């Protein structure tokens, strides 16, 4: 692809499953995102050592962020992107890195106690959650995607990506969406309540 594409053209091309646009999207953002992660991502271990994000880690985070971006566009869970695509990818990579750090800390501390379900039950749980998400309107589907599928914790990050006001607006919107999601979920699985 010789011509430069706008962000909107990229999103439309990805949505239409155009392989050339998908390749362009992947290649044009890679260097910036990987370099950013290598320079800025790190965590401190319990004994005070710093674990930096290496280039291989950064490339893996980048690939995973791209996969989720493409899938969420295809499945219409992200309908509008106000931030630059690279900013969106870097934010996704940052949260994935944060979760990796948390998982690492948990491993080195103590195993999580719990009622984690077996494989079959997990699949059923995930399938029911997806059903409940799909019943939401596009705006709420997008909110739940950012908060729970992508794991973005800071409302300001979501506000920046979606262009919906500020963190407080997102907090209120997410609260309404989560209520609707819970209603759909309870109906789907027929449980007493969550």
């Amino acid at each position, binding site marked *: 692809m010789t011509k430069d594409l706008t962000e909107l053209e990229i999103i439309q091309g990805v949505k239409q499953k155009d*392989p050339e646009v*998908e*390749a362009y999207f*992947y*290649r044009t953002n*890679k*260097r*910036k995102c*990987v*370099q*950013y992660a*290598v*320079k*800025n991502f790190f965590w401190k271990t319990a004994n005070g050592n710093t674990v930096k994000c290496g*280039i291989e880690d950064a*490339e893996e985070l980048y*690939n*995973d962020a*791209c*996969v*989720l971006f*493409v*899938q969420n566009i*295809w*499945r219409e869970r992200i309908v509008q992107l106000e931030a*630059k695509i*690279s*900013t969106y990818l*870097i934010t996704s990579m940052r949260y994935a890195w944060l979760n990796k750090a*948390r998982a690492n800390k948990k491993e080195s501390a103590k195993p999580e106690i*719990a*009622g*984690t*379900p077996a494989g079959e039950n*997990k*699949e059923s*749980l*995930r*399938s*029911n*959650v*997806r059903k409940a998400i799909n019943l939401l309107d596009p705006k709420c589907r997008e909110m739940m995607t950012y908060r*729970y*599928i992508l794991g973005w*914790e800071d409302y300001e990050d979501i506000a920046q990506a979606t262009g919906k006001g500020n963190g407080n607006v997102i*907090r209120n919107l997410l*609260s309404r969406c*989560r*209520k609707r999601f819970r209603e759909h*979920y309870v109906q789907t699985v027929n*449980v*007493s*309540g*969550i």
Partner: protein
Amino acid sequence: MRLSEEDIIKLEAMWQGALDSTERAALEKQLQEDAAFHEAAEEWKLIVSEGFLPPQEELEEQEEIKKRMQAYAQEAEIDSVAEAERPFRIRRLYIGLAAAAVLLLLLWLGPLGRVLGPSSPADNFFAHLPRDNANLSDPGDAGKQAYDRQTYKRAYTALLQDVASGGDSLNLIYASVAAIGSGQAEKAIPILESLVDANNWRLYQSEISWYLALAYVYEEQNGQAISLLEKMVDTGGEYSAEAQALLATMKK
């Protein structure tokens, strides 16, 4: 029992480690004392930690997308190798054309250059390096703004101050470009030399080598410049055509 939105916000903050110790203690007490609340909280935790992960169907789709992404990465690597191994005849044509263009420019600018002051072969090769993460920067940052406007003298000082105060060290490259652009190539040399072959800067080695070579040429450290430029030509990659053309200019 049905959790309130407030309960959920507090519980999630606690699981993320973002709740202060007083609130955390109160919530833990409630979880211990209220069995129904505890059960509903565990149910929500399970949904948050497991339920939003992709079901099998989506996992398979993700695997397919991932394979394509990996193929794009490999194709990009092959392209860069192919670029480096492009038949010499074609490269020679490009290099010849670039050298001819440079020669014409030199002839045209020659008399003017002599009027304005001594020129360097690097003059015709120096170009602004756009910042990679411009969209991520704070719009109020004076150094970056000065750099983007190509107000190099101001940008050089401000960018170095920014790095010294813990800012993005990527700005070292842009500070070096600003030093060269403001006629202070000697200041760019020690900065860029410290970045050559550094592992953290692997993705920027082409830019680092190219601007270091330009700085050497400006400072008339021709031996070091030629050695670096020849290395760039041999390894191919970005700036190899420019390196070849600059070498040709220097030899003339």
